């Protein structure tokens, strides 16, 4: 999730991965400097790794477990605590290894500490830079630029459908206009915070009610969402643009219409959203579809970094979009 604090989210998979990559790159650089050939390089690398990898993992674990506490302090305090944790972790690992005489080439404790501090400092500096590049202001500007836009095609066709109802079925026209108002309220809002999935599903139903007005029995939707906790948090307008695409590319080109299937389920710590629609080879406007998918992908990255993914594939006559994101639920106290 996007953060307002300057501290990297130490419980995020992407952050942990980046720490591992930077630390190992630093180790390799160290081994390279200390060696004069490929053999000595490999030897140096293994001997450094013997002590460095456990230290790295212990430190990562300590940081992971203390993240909640660190998050409550100021950035400066947090940095100080991180260095204390690194010192503790390194000392503990050193103490453990020094008990065994077989590790004869164990470096001295001060040397290991200096290594650990340097690598820690590099990583913190990297995250500081990363944070500035993805500062909330910039992230929000990008999220706003990526705001899902409804197809004008839909707007004008829906208005046309409502106009056709006004004379004969004023009640239905009223409902349709109310649905449209709700839909556009959400579309024009500043959609930057995560929303409960129930809210997004309700929005999709209103959208589909409007499409049903135009397409009538040609549009069928199957919802497979029985076991979904309603308070799972997802980026707003994650499903609606996908369903809109499915209607435009999957249903409208079919003379007899078709069925869109929306499936949501949770598995372990992940939420899976699967959307299927009929695929027609005739569909000519593929660019529009790719634009929408790219947009959603980018928003997922801004919200969840590497922990979310979007895949799309076409199997025979079905087009499928599969989104995976971390399971975050709304806290009951607010």
């Amino acid at each position: 999730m996007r953060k307002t604090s300057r501290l990297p989210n130490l419980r995020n998979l992407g952050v942990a991965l980046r720490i591992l990559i930077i630390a190992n790159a630093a180790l390799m650089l160290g081994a390279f400097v200390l060696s004069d050939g490929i053999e000595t390089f490999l030897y140096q690398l293994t001997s450094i790794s013997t002590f460095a990898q456990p230290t790295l993992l212990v430190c990562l674990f300590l940081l992971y477990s203390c993240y909640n506490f660190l998050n409550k302090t100021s950035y400066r305090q947090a940095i100080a605590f991180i260095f204390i944790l690194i010192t503790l972790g390194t000392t503990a690992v050193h103490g453990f290894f020094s008990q065994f005489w077989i590790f004869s080439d164990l470096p001295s404790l001060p040397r290991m500490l200096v290594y650990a501090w340097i690598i820690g400092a590099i990583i913190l500096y990297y995250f500081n830079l990363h944070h500035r590049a993805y500062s909330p202001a910039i992230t929000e500007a990008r999220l706003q630029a990526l705001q899902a836009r409804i197809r004008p095609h839909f707007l004008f066709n829906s208005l046309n459908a409502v106009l056709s109802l006004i004379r004969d079925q004023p009640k239905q026209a009223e409902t349709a206009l109310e649905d449209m108002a709700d839909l556009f309220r959400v579309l024009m809002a500043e959609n930057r915070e995560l929303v409960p999935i129930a809210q997004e599903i309700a929005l999709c139903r209103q959208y589909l009610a409007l499409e049903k007005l135009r397409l009538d029995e040609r549009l069928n939707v199957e919802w497979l969402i029985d076991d979904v906790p309603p308070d799972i948090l997802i980026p707003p307008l994650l499903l609606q643009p996908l369903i809109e695409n499915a209607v435009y590319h999957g249903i409208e080109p079919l003379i007899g219409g078709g069925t869109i299937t929306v499936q949501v389920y949770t598995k372990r710590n992940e939420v899976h959203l699967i959307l299927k629609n009929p695929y027609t080879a005739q569909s000519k406007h593929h660019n529009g579809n790719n634009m929408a998918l790219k947009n959603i992908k980018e928003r997922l990255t801004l919200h969840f970094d590497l922990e979310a993914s979007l895949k799309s594939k076409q199997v025979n006559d079905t087009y499928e979009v599969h989104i995976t994101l971390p399971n975050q639920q709304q806290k009951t106290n607010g």
Partner: protein
Amino acid sequence: MVNYANLNILIADDEAPARNRLRTLLGDIENIRVVAEAKNGRELLDIINRSQSEQTSTDIVLLDIRMPEMDGIETAQHLQKLPKPPAVIFTTAYDTYAIKAFDMNAVDYLLKPIRIERLQTALQKARVLLPNQLEALAPLSPKRSHLSISERGRILLVPISDVIYLRAELKYITVRTAEREYLIEESLAHLEQEFSNLFTRLHRNCLAANAYILGYEKRNQDEHAEKQWVALLKHVPETITVSRRQQHLIRQNML
């Protein structure tokens, strides 16, 4: 200029509310008769064919652009094959490309939701599309779903998916389906380009539909000539000779 008294109008739109809306608006205009409504281009052409035999003419068609089965642009292209084609007014909700194309070629179009005043002016100046206007609109509907043949004042539609092969013969192209043959006046090169994903050129003068090619066989055409590769086709007894230049296709298919 179309005579404003007793205009016969046809509506084609895939959305029922859009058709209702047009019918309501047209009902408010005098001297107009909505003859029929169609859910797509194919249906519209069927209706026109039927009315042709009943000696009633259609003066104006209101054509939605985005329709399943056969879109508005393709429908307008087929309509040109009629001895007396009706005037065409396109309707569309929103399509930047289409609107640009229409503006450039001064083709009449109505933007949905349609205003009655706008509809009235469009009906007053409705006229038959010119061939070059249609040609300019062709890129909006790059692949036709049907081939059309004009026969005794009617339009015969052959779905592309029914075509087994296309063979160039002198001025015409023979269109072969399982039931019969048709003659159309088009260029084989153009057809090859348009349906490149569906047809393969087996010979200088012949395109065969990939879906109907059963396989290939080496045969003696006559006793003295050397053996030649031929393609066997579904539903029809005749075979198509694969020219030497295209024989790499056979190898690709056998892998």
